């Protein structure tokens, strides 16, 4: 079962890489058919990613929310689903796959760096608050991913001449991308708020304190404040356009640091779930 899971994972990584390349080639060389192939491969990637999670769920006997490997894997699943829904629902957004897919590719790459051993369902994990906490973390990451891709669009629109580089013209209008990015950040702040609150309720049930200064906890708060400041600046000081887009890029780096890098380098309850009550 574990071998089959590994095969599916590597197949999904290859498909994701090919999809990213086709997106970029199709976009830059204005080849619609290549771009569409890249887009179609996102669905194949999504199916493979779903199958990987399903196989693991079957043999581990629990959802993908316990080990860091499972959490990152399901982050990628939700982020991809989120991107597919948003880019299908809002017209002209399929093109931001040129940014979203490479980010998803890097994210799924991070999964392979995490230890893949499965954990049994220990009592600490049997909590609805934990499931909500992990679910909303994924939704927050998904909306951050789309917001970042949209902000990158704003930056490229501002700095690359679209008469000389016609591929830029395929990107959404800067103003629209800016507004959509703002919407995604509103959504991400809401999801991140629920993530932090449900996490603190779970921590209180488990340890009798709702805030424990765990590094991931703190970096989630830092990320939350950074996105909160964006909204504050936007409402109060009409902070938008290229400046706001650069801010979103910076916020994205902080969020990637919180979600993907910190668990690998810090001793935190978020990377020692398996250790808890072994």
């Amino acid at each position, binding site marked *: 079962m574990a071998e089959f899971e590994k095969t599916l994972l590597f197949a999904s990584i290859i498909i994701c890489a090919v999809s990213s390349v086709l997106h970029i080639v199709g976009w830059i060389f204005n080849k619609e058919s290549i771009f569409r192939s890249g887009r179609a491969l996102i669905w194949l990637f999504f199916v493979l990613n779903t199958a990987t999670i399903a196989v693991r769920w079957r043999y581990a006997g629990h959802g993908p929310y316990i080990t860091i490997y499972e959490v990152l894997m399901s982050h990628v699943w939700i982020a991809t689903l989120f991107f597919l829904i948003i880019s299908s629902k809002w017209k002209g957004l399929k093109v931001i796959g040129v940014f979203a897919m490479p980010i998803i590719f890097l994210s799924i790459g991070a999964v392979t760096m995490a230890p893949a051993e499965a*954990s*049994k369902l*220990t*009592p*600490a994990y*049997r*909590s609805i*608050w*934990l499931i909500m906490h992990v679910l909303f973390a994924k939704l927050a990451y998904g909306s951050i991913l789309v917001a970042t891709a949209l902000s990158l669009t704003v930056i490229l629109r501002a700095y690359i001449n679209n008469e000389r580089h016609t591929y830029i013209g395929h990107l959404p209008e800067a*103003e*629209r991308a800016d*507004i959509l990015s*703002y*919407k995604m950040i*509103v959504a991400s*702040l*809401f999801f991140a*708020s*629920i993530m932090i*609150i449900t996490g*603190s*309720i*779970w921590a*209180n*049930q*488990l*340890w*009798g*304190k*709702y*805030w424990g*200064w*765990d*590094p991931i*906890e*703190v*970096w989630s*708060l*830092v990320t939350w*404040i*950074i996105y*909160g*400041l964006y909204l*504050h*600046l936007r409402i*109060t*000081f009409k902070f938008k356009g290229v400046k706001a887009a650069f801010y979103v890029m910076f916020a994205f780096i902080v969020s990637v640091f919180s979600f993907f890098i910190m668990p690998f380098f810090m001793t935190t309850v978020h990377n020692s779930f398996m250790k*808890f*009550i*072994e």
Partner: protein
Amino acid sequence: MLMIYSLLKSRKLTVVLFIAFLPLIIIEAETRSLPGYIFIGFAVPLIVNLLLCLLDHLKRIEKWTVYRIGFVLFHASFLVMITGGILTFFTYRIAYIEIAEGNGFTDQPQYYNGWRQKFGEHTGTGIKIFVKKIVLEFWDNGQVKDFYNEIIILDDDKTTDARLKVNGSIKYKSLLINMARFYGLAPYFTVNTREGNKSGHVTIRSDEKSSEFIIPLLGHKAFAYFEDINDTGIKITILGDRGKIFKKSMKVGDIIKLEKGTLELKKIDIWNGLTVVRDSGKGITYIGFIIFLVGLAIYYIRVFIGKEKNG
């Protein structure tokens, strides 16, 4: 005076304070060494700023709309959360006890293995907690499958039975009783000397599998070990007088003869760690959480479904 007032109600100050807050929390997370008054000192201008901004905003409202209510709610929620946080800071106390099955304790400092509080001199509530049964089951790979305590809470004449679970703390009056992550075997020894005898548990943690203790009445340093939680015996090493070392595997009923007395293993129980917490600010913080989410949802819903749907 007017200048100070203008500064304190400035929305730019909010940005500055939040930016200043970032390194502060990162330093605290890394070092856990910042004194509390730094946070309190930081919270005061933030509270004043939020309060003045809110009052200023309320003054300027001509017509209340759903969005305005949302805006006021989610900003006011920060005040509620900060108030809860400050109350937690001043009232929080946590006590830890390692308790064997079939034993009880009273919520008073002298009964606990550890007692931590920042302010005041709490004497405890006097509520008695008795651990009737500890249920501990394992998966094939050794991870815990099920883990809970059947407890009895005795308060004046009232007796309350409850099941304490890993994810199910028990709230009783002002106390929150939690399971801590530690458990293991607790051999129960009796020491007999010419001067008298004494009995008690030694708790050995499952993750460390050994425990150091001093044998009462005899004063020898000793180490107790086990290999598996299902063991029916333990191993013991005693550092006797003049460097003499006693090493022995003990089953229930075994007696070790030492120079000035004997050590008998009477039984082996299972034990686990519990924490008992008192936190007067938590409820207020949770109310702040709810107000925040409601306010945020009401305020920003317009971005998705209202007239600002398209920006």
